[in-house]
């Protein structure tokens, strides 16, 4: 006999399914790192808005403090988020365990670089436009996207060779193409130079814009990718196709995303930094 108010099996199952589904949705919301994406999206939107605005809007881009961890903490570093690296990878016939771990680290860095390039409009938008003294003197505006530090377990791996880094950028896919092509618009890896990555040091991922002034010379960008500005202009398609129209030949346009040791930031001779601390 069915009593009034009693739950049927069907109702009970539906209720359980609903509660479990709700739990799964909550788990996904809190574990997908939506906050981290939001900061990058806010930045990307502000960059686009500024490029479209006649009077020049406000950039809302924040430096991401990233800890690349093999299980420990990055000491003396208040990270915004941690990128975990699996230190227990199984070696294959072609690759040692250390190579596989280093590849994971490089992929994490490549992702940060790709995000940076995307946040600042992939070299297609002018996010530093506006009237200021630099119209006369020239400027090199730097946009720091991320500061990267490694934990003690990763530090023990020593350093990563620049050729290994290049290889990871070529082997890893971003959309339909390689990370290397996405970042630099070319397939010829010999034209881009990186320094070795010392895992004991702190690194900065940055992009920027260099503009030549009316009288002054363009700010020196020799240290950007270890190559001269004219060479840079000649090989990066972004410079040719998306050269900003204001001054035509007086512009040098967007600087490709790069990674630099924190100590070496002064060598880049940035005139301004536009990202928030």
């Amino acid at each position, binding site marked *: 006999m069915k009593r009034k108010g009693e739950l049927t099996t069907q109702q009970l199952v539906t209720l359980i399914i609903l509660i479990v589904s709700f739990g799964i949705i909550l788990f996904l919301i809190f574990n997908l790192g939506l906050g981290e994406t939001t900061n990058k999206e806010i930045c990307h939107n502000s960059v686009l808005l500024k490029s479209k605005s006649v*009077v*020049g809007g*406000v950039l809302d881009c*924040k*430096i991401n403090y990233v800890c690349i961890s093999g299980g420990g903490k990055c000491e*003396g*570093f*208040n990270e915004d988020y941690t990128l975990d690296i699996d230190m227990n990878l199984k070696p294959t016939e072609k690759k040692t365990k250390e190579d596989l771990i280093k590849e994971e680290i490089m992929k994490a860095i490549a992702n940060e670089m790709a995000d940076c390039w995307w946040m600042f409009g992939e070299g297609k938008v002018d996010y530093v436009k506006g*009237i*200021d003294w630099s119209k006369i003197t020239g400027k090199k505006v730097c946009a*720091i996207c991320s500061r990267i530090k490694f934990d003690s377990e990763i530090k023990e791996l020593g350093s990563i060779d620049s050729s290994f880094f290049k290889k990871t950028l070529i082997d890893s896919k971003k959309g339909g193409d390689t990370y290397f092509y996405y970042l630099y618009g070319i397939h010829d890896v010999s034209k881009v130079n990186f320094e070795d990555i010392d895992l004991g040091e702190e690194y900065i991922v940055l992009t920027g814009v260099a503009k030549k002034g009316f009288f002054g010379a363009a700010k020196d960008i020799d240290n950007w990718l270890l190559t001269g500005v004219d060479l840079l202009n000649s090989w990066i398609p972004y410079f040719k196709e998306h050269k900003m129209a204001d001054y035509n030949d007086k512009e040098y346009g967007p600087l490709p995303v790069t990674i630099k040791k*924190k100590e070496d*930031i*002064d060598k880049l001779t*940035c005139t*301004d*930094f*536009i*990202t*928030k*601390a």
Partner: protein
Amino acid sequence: MKNRRGFLLAEETLKIVIALICISFLIYLLTSLYFKNKDSKDLELAKASLEHLVNEINAKAPSVEIYNPKGWVIGVWPHDTTKRIWYYLFLLSETKIGLPKYCENLGWDRCICICKKDDQDKCDDLGFCLESDSKIEGGAIEIEKPPITLKIDGGEITKVAK
């Protein structure tokens, strides 16, 4: 009436004077608009930089990098200095530099501020402060040629030479 060649009539002179006044006013208006806009953008950067600095102090980080805004000053208040006004050899007044109104109104005894100028009054006009017991030798550090590295040693902030 004869209008001689090359002679400026009073009416034309008046027109030129009025035009000059209008152009000057327009230039003033545009310049002040530009600086107002730039200052508000810099203030946003300043807020983020100071919040980052205080977070790092609280987290007992050994050092911190400050990237912007260029030319602004980070100072702790009250400065342990006195303001003296001299008239040749005569000391007219001597006052201990107090807190910016920003901190005073919030009831803070000590605060750390980031301002466009290292001046108590100007800090109220264009600056941002947070409560802090930190100390800076000489009271203030200018963000010249960024990035600057600040060493934090038990609440004592010093600028690291490049």
